[in-house]
């Protein structure tokens, strides 16, 4: 697709000549590299609460970010006005980081990625959300509300929300890359409160989506699916006892519990932390950091997944990156800056929240490959332990490597059987150590349903996680029970 047919070409008349001149302005004071990130984000958000559609919001955000890199230095400025004089002004501000003679040696752009023949086409969706009527989208939250209320008489409150967005991006770099992409994203979530008699209320939550169109919620994961799952989780919690405390065997169920990998391993392998030598994984490439049963990858190229991208936010094609292979640390996740400084290839991991943000190395979809064990055998082989079926969020201190994450649905394992539900379990461990205790990996790899949001240095980006059933022989569980 020629630039003139792209979103920014058509709507704002931006030409390759314009882009060249902005990049020249950005590099006028020197610098090794410059890029432009144009973004137009259209969002809509609908929510139902007390069976009333109380809140609905539509919005549009438009802008351009200009970055100049000079050695280890980055200058950044942005504008929410796409007039040439405002973009040039931003370019001059970003250029302040550099000093020295101009060294622009580029000639033209080569097209990369983004819905084009040479790049990925990971989210060809039948109907873009913005092409459907709001009334159709409202029906999704109404159905979720009806279904959750009908599912169990103990449910006394239901909130459901549907959010979708279409992000148009254009990346132009001084090393000649020109990428465009159109990135849809949609998510449906249901939250319920349930109570038995006068007892304590418990919350259940379920949600999912991806880079999908409305049809996904009609055919693959319906509002009823998420509603029933949210209710099921709340009801399980009603019968749950306080979680035990102390060290024990932990079995993680498949899917979302893969957030363990995201916290325990993924963040510590982002190249910015390793360039600065502040990660617990710094300098450990080639070393054993997990049991030989563990192979962990970060793959931004899975069709329709929430963490997938045709091109990253620096215009580089995404790819599958092996982080840990049979327990051995193989690689880090690079953005452009860290790949320049560490003389490595970019891994297509440069991401940013918006045009107002500087890109950094981030995860896409992070998961462990399937093993050979039967999930039932994994549980049967555990005399006493904790089975975690679902998690809330987690966090890691990448320097010490210590991480935590909270289980939102967990059960005791007693004599090789899953017995009673427990609540409030918090798992804690150390990144380079925790996965060394993995003694069984199931054949049941599942990716999560598509609701992950990862925060780093104030920037949030959508991500995916996944894991098969795994057994970790030793992990600290924080709870209040005996």
């Amino acid at each position, binding site marked *: 697709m020629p630039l003139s047919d792209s979103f920014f070409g058509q709507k704002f008349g931006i030409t390759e000549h314009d882009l060249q001149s902005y990049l020249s302005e950005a590099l006028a004071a020197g610098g090794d590299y410059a890029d432009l990130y144009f973004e137009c984000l259209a969002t809509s958000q*609908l929510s139902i609460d007390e*069976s*009333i559609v*109380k*809140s*609905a*919001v*539509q*919005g*549009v*955000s438009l802008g351009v970010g200009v970055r100049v890199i000079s050695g*280890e*230095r*980055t*200058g*950044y*400025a*942005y*504008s*929410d006005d796409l007039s040439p004089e405002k973009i040039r002004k*931003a370019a001059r*501000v970003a250029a*302040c*980081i550099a000093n020295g003679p101009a060294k622009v040696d580029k000639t033209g752009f080569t097209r990369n990625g983004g819905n084009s023949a040479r790049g990925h086409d990971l989210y060809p969706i039948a109907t873009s959300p913005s092409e459907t009527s*709001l009334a159709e989208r*409202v029906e999704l939250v109404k159905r979720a509300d009806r279904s959750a209320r009908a599912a169990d008489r103990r449910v*006394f*409150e239901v909130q459901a929300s549907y959010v979708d967005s279409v992000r148009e991006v254009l990346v132009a770099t001084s090393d000649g890359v020109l990428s465009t992409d159109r990135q849809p994203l949609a998510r449906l979530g249901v939250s319920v*409160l349930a109570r038995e008699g006068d007892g*304590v209320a418990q*919350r259940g939550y379920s949600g999912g989506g991806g880079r999908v169109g409305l049809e996904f919620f009609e055919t693959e994961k319906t509002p009823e699916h998420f509603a029933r799952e949210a209710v099921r989780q709340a009801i399980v919690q009603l019968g749950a006892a*306080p979680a035990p*405390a*102390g*060290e024990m065997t932990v079995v993680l169920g498949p899917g979302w519990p893969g957030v363990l990998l995201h916290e325990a391993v993924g963040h510590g392998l982002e190249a910015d932390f390793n360039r*600065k*030598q*502040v990660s*617990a994984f710094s300098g450990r490439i080639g070393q054993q950091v997990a049991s030989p049963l563990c192979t962990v990858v970060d793959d931004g190229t899975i069709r329709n997944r929430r963490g997938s991208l045709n091109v990253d936010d620096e215009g580089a094609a995404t790819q599958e990156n092996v982080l840990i292979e049979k327990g051995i640390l193989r690689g880090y996740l690079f953005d452009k800056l860290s790949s320049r400084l560490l003389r490595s290839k970019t891994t297509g991991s440069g991401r940013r929240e918006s045009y*107002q943000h*500087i890109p950094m190395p981030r995860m896409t979809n992070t998961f462990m490959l399937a093993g050979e064990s039967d999930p039932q055998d994994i549980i049967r082989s555990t005399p006493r332990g904790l089975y975690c079926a679902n998690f*809330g969020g*987690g966090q*890691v*201190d990448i*320097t*010490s490597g*210590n*991480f*935590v994450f*909270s289980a939102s649905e967990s059960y005791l394992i007693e004599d090789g059987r899953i017995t009673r539900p427990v609540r*409030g379990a*918090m798992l*804690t*461990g150390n990144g380079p150590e925790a996965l060394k205790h993995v003694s069984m990996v199931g054949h049941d790899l599942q990716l999560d349903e598509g609701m992950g949001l990862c925060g780093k240095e104030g920037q949030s980006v959508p991500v995916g996680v996944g894991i098969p059933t795994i057994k970790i022989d030793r992990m*600290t*569980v*924080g*709870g*209040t029970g005996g």
Partner: protein
Amino acid sequence: MIDLARQAVRLALDRGAKDAECTLAEGQEFSAHVRMRNLETLKDAGSRRAGLRVLVGKRVGSAHTSDLSSDGVLQMVKSALEIAEISTEDPFADLPDPSELGSLPGDLDLYSDDIQTIDTPARIKEALETEEAALSWDPRITNSEGASFSAHSGQRVFANSRGFFGGYRTSSCSLSTTPVARQGESMERDFWYSSARSHSKLDSPAAVGRRAAERTVRRLGARKVPTQKVPVIFDSVTARSLLGNIFEAVEGDSIYRKASFLAGKLGERVASENVTVIDDGCLPGLFGTSPFDDEGVPSRRTVVIDRGVLRSYLLNSYTARKLGLRTTGNAARGITGNAGVGHGNFFLEKGERSPEEIIRGIRQGLYVTELIGQGVNVVTGDYSRGAAGLWIENGEFAYPVSEITIAANLRQMLLDVEAAGSDLEFRGSVASPTLLIREMTVSGQ
């Protein structure tokens, strides 16, 4: 800007809205980040946003845009009206009563132009000095995630169809640094910062750097402790997060939904006598201060918990109507949509004893300096978080601990507050002195 907001409101009324409210915000951000004595990142930019919420009968629609041209504003108005079409009538949807609207008089000291007078090289120098103070404090500090100087200034205006319009400017700046210390196999980081609405109120680079270094070095060689029940002291940093949990439990949204362990407890004892919690949006120069809330209701002081007795929830006009109460001027929203509930300066009153005295009184216990992860459920009060800190033996710090969790129920934790320290300091819109909780479960080995 105020005129633009009023125009948007008028435009919405002309096109059929019964009521409308418009927020405009503009902001400038600057940051200089240095690392290992070199400048690494400079960012300097500004942006503007408009948001509109309309009522068509009892149906609500909202929209926002970054395009403040007349065409952009018109699109936003159309978009909000379009979206109101598909929402459902909400009998409680409304704006605050005109008698409740207004703005605090006088200068609240929210904007200072002394920040603007400091040029970029001077800002970079302050960041460099902050990092240097940390790096040179102790030989075990061998690395750094850097130091930053950042500055923000902005303006927020609000107008509604009940006759309210107003605006205010704010400024802020901050200095922070994150040193990394190493001893043998142990590598730890921590951080410290200072932030203020005027540059003159900022702590010195030396003070910020030294404090960051002290916090980092004392974590080296951390170990796990056996699982046990002990008294737990939250330092003034981690105690702030506890105050955040209390806020979530008293804000009107979770109250009318009965999604808080404090719902329906007005007038009851919910905490020990040592606990008095106040929300005050009027204190000059602080981060939680504003002349009016995000619905145009004047900020005020509300006693939330008075010596252990729950006295008031924090409400916006919607949650007040739901509960049959009056708004407490606590409406908060980004730029558009139905307002949620926020806080002004939300703090726990200080007590008599210094943190040192409180620590001296503990035979065996945990002093918490960092909490990570989410594990707080305000519906049930269940509380479980990852923690790091210092182990106390016979009234003194014995050794650092990490990779542990602390757990209890907030309901009991509030009743178990045995002491609030004398060290209350406003470093953000939530503040707390050091707090001693009688007993929590510490999980380790």
